[in-house]
């Protein structure tokens, strides 16, 4: 059963076509890896899915419901983009984990205990809630972003280069945590220019403007 279907997506960079008429479809419960060299438009593709980059004419269907472009906040709530570079809001670890739950469309409320559990899963036991995120290392910030995304419990998670700056051990932890997130009513799309780090259900490759399924 399809859980997410978005397309057609076309992107240009300085009039040069990056890709054209691409459809992204994810089945319920699956983990998909999207690879491709830098500069092929992987990030743009993810941003188009959630409408941060204009995608004129694209249809978005999530869990059987189609979303108009005026409903993007609702769509984004359930189809979460984990942006590359681990951006954060100024403030403490807790503020960074909590702020999404204070939005009008938030489904649940912030659960400190659950937050602690995910932090521990990702090897961030040593962090205190009061610590300023600006003081964390890049690797810690990446894992904190991941904790925030997992805590949110979206239906679909689109992770853009989630493993940047992680050493081998933490990489393993991050991979395990993502796998734990998966469930029958969930789907995961991991985007990276690097190598595949574990078993996935499907592999896609974006290069020279074409999205191809790898066998």
């Amino acid at each position, binding site marked *: 059963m399809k859980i997410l279907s978005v397309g057609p997506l076309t992107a240009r960079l300085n009039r040069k076509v990056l890709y054209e008429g691409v459809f992204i479809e994810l089945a319920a419960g699956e983990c998909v890896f999207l690879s491709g060299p830098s500069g092929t438009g992987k990030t743009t593709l993810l941003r188009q899915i*959630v*409408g*941060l*980059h*204009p995608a004129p004419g694209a249809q978005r269907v999530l869990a059987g419901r189609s979303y108009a*472009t*005026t409903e*993007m*906040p*609702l769509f*984004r*709530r*359930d189809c*979460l*983009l*984990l*942006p590359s*570079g681990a*951006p*954060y*809001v*100024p403030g403490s670890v807790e503020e960074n984990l909590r*702020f*999404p739950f204070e*939005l*009008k*469309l*938030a489904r649940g409320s912030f659960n400190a205990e659950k937050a602690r559990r995910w932090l521990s899963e990702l090897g961030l036991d040593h962090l205190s809630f009061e610590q300023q995120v600006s003081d964390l290392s890049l690797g810690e910030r990446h894992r904190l972003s991941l904790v925030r995304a997992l805590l*949110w419990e979206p239906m679909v998670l689109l992770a853009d280069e989630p493993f940047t700056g992680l050493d081998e051990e933490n990489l393993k932890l991050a991979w395990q945590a993502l796998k734990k997130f998966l469930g029958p009513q969930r789907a995961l799309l991991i985007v990276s220019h690097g190598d595949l780090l574990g078993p996935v259900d499907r592999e896609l490759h974006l290069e020279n403007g074409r999205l191809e399924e790898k066998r």
Partner: protein
Amino acid sequence: MTNEYIVLKASDLLLASFFILLAGAFSLAFHLRIERRLFVAAARTVIQLLLLGLVLEWIFSQDTPVPVLLILAFMIFVAGREAVARLKNRYPLILLDTTLVMAASAVIVGSMVTQVIIGVKPWYHPQYVIPLVGMILGNSLNGVSLALDSFLDYLRHRREEIELYLVFGATRWEALRPPMRSAIRRGLIPIINAMSVAGIVSLPGIMTGQILAGVPPLQAVAYQILIMFMLAGAYTLGTMLATFLAGRKLLDKETRLALEKIR
């Protein structure tokens, strides 16, 4: 105590121009090369203020609201332009927005002060309406300009933060709350400073003017307090409305941060 003021004659101003000549002489003596700009600026002061005086004298002698409304419209238009004149970043039709903000400041704060608080009769009494609305516009444009500068700068340089709110399903105004907050704070700094030091560090201009014109000090104080509060209102309304209008354009109907519009 008299309620009179000492009339200034043309010969008095001629004497005052001694200061300009002195400054010019210094400039020549020390090769500062600002004598030209100094004299041009001094001449502009004389010509512009003289023209303003003539226009005001004529308007004050008229008994209809039309010239008052015309000059207010002109002032609003100029203030709208000035508010964007020194901005680093702009977006399409920003001039329309700032002019709208200036008009709103002038109409809302201006009518509150002149009609409700002071209660001028007739309602367009130019002696009150023109200087008061002039002050409202001059200050509001200052606040608007600072707020927009901060707002557009924030959007450009802290895009990731705003988009971080958006990816979790923030609505337009939820995502724009931090940049709006910082922009409005920035825009209100001048009036908060002015109110904080009023009477201690600076003797506010209108009070100085009224005291020179023979108004009793406490009455001048009353006017000054009214003016300060009025300007606080103008600053607040101006900065909030300006960032609101800019936010509506730059975070579009699809709840997307349209940075490509900022140039």
